[in-house]
């Protein structure tokens, strides 16, 4: 549904996005992760036809965005970061103004706007948008992104200004939209947010795609290389004796806990040994790289 090929954007001689190759399938909830300034918003601006790439190309539903931005804008919805509205108009008037660009007649506009305002809990709000709180603006932003019932939704830092209840509702909404077959592209620098809703992620750093896949796949790809070593965490009720096995490379002991570095997964053998020595095994697991640590390491690069 979304594809970029060697997508590049240069600002003042600096590459904001550098040869990005990305693919997001239909109905996916894709998390676009990266630290501030990584090039996430620039990528979204190119995908939504708001700026032209310096090099490469991007396609949404098979349409090359730079060649026909209007055709793309008709089938997508976009919630910009820090979304803005016309402060002298109500939420309803703002939505009506945007809806007119899709050729919707007055009756259709009215029905759609009422439906969306109810969805984001802004129905009955008569204030002008200039008097809205940041959270209300964010909710109205979501409504304007859905005004044309898009098949692809781009959300840039969607939960930035929402309260916990708003975040929960947003997550439910995204799940529901994905259930309807819509593709949702969520850009964020908050891992926990992406983790909560996204099935696949892409990690961007310095304009380049560092990894793409499920969160676990990305975490494994990015984990610090330790050769083919397997790290096994062991905990027993009793004090741990010396553990000997030809596959073991090293053991880091700490009372009744230890992290065993071995050439292969020797958990079965290890369990038998400890059991035969009359020890009670409380924990025995392969230590996976900590996803937060892995992402933080990339963010700090």
């Amino acid at each position: 549904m979304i594809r970029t090929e060697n997508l590049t954007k240069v600002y003042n001689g600096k590459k904001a996005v550098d040869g990005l190759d990305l693919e997001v399938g239909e109905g996916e909830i894709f998390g676009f992760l990266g630290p501030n300034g990584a090039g996430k918003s620039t990528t979204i601006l190119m995908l939504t036809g708001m700026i032209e790439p310096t090099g490469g190309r991007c396609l949404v539903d098979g349409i090359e965005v730079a060649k026909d931005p209007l055709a793309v804008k008709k089938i997508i919805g976009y919630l910009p970061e820090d979304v803005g509205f016309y402060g002298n108009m109500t939420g309803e008037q703002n939505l009506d103004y945007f809806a007119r660009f899709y050729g919707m007649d007055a009756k259709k506009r009215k029905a759609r706007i009422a439906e969306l305002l109810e969805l984001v809990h802004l129905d009955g709000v008569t204030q002008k948008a200039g008097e809205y709180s940041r959270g209300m603006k964010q909710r109205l932003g979501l409504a304007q992104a859905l005004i044309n019932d898009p098949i692809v939704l781009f959300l840039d830092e969607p939960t930035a200004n929402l309260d916990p209840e708003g975040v929960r509702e947003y997550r439910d909404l995204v799940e529901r939209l994905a259930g309807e077959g819509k593709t949702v592209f969520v850009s964020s620098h908050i891992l926990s947010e992406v983790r909560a809703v996204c099935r696949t992620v892409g990690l961007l750093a310095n304009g380049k795609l560092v990894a793409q896949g499920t969160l676990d796949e990305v975490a494994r790809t990015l984990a610090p290389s330790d050769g083919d070593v397997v790290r096994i965490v062991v905990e027993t009720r009793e004090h741990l004796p010396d553990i000997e096995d030809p596959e073991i490379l090293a053991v880091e002991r700490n009372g009744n806990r230890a992290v065993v570095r071995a050439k292969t997964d020797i958990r079965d053998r290890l369990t038998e040994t400890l059991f035969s020595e009359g020890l009670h095994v409380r924990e025995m697991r392969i230590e996976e790289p900590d996803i937060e640590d892995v992402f933080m390491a990339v963010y700090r690069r």
Partner: protein
Amino acid sequence: MALDRLLNVARKEFSDHITSRRFVIILALFLVISAVSIHDGIENYNNSLESYNEQLQRMEEFEDPYSSWMPEKPSIMYVFISMMSYMTALGGILALAIGFDLVSKEKESRSLKTLLSHPIYRDEIINGKVLGGVGALGFAMALSLAIAIAMLLIFSVVPTVDEFAAILVFGAASLGLLLAYFAIALTMSTVAKESGNALIYTLVIFAIVSSLLPMLGMMAADALAGDPPEAPEMGPMGKQVVGTASSGGYFVSTASQSVVYGGTEDPAWREYEEEMKTYIEKRRFINDISNLLSPQMNYYTVAMAVTNPRIALMISSYTDAGVQEEPGSLAEALGRVWMNIAALIVFPSVFFAATYVKFMRMDIR
């Protein structure tokens, strides 16, 4: 460009303008001053008409020996002369007020980014904004002319077809002036990142084109035309040089001078007179060229040609004062100021073009 998208933007912009407190307050002030000044103008016109009728009556009664001389019938266009001064002041403020934050405010509120995420091209947005602004200023102008005409009719002054045409031309020239200031404000609004800066830049450009440029034009004329020729030492009696500086609050920056004869032909004086004429024409040419860059000066020239063609002709005439010229029809009067009319059209067009280019390349991150 799809017309419906352009009109959607223009409709919203027009509605924003005419419902904004800023626009309504300035327009109300403009209309009140307009009505008061039209009222004064009508009184003056009625007085002039009375005096004209008395003169005609006296001529018939006393069989005036100067039978070839006829008093000039006052035109109702005199009523509009007073509109010129506040048109450049309040009208200018109105135009600047609706234009200076038209784009910068959208950048500040980030509504431009939201708007651009919907199916619309950038040129449709900027053209829609221009159209909406032109519509709002046209609305203001039409309203003030409608009030003026209504007041004329209330006071039983009925314009002829020619006078009605002249009123429309006056309105068009006034709109041209307002568009010039609106175009400056819109350009600055596109260039500046913040509305506050946009307003400052707008006022600076406004001061440059309305005051500094005419002053520089006069200085350039002085510098380039050199010193005026010196008069011969022994001249015939009664010769004098008359300089026209101002007329009814209308500042004439050019030195229009004429030599009045009062004696016999003298070759030295004749030569001096020719040199003086060349000198004046040279000064005037330089000054006129620089004035073309000032919408205010162009407006004064065009509006004067419409409201008071006789004085406009006297100001623009290089010929000896002894030769009387008739101002002719409205078309002829406008024909004499075609360069100023063209300048009134070109000036906003240049600024609108600059706005367009800048807006199309604007970074919207």
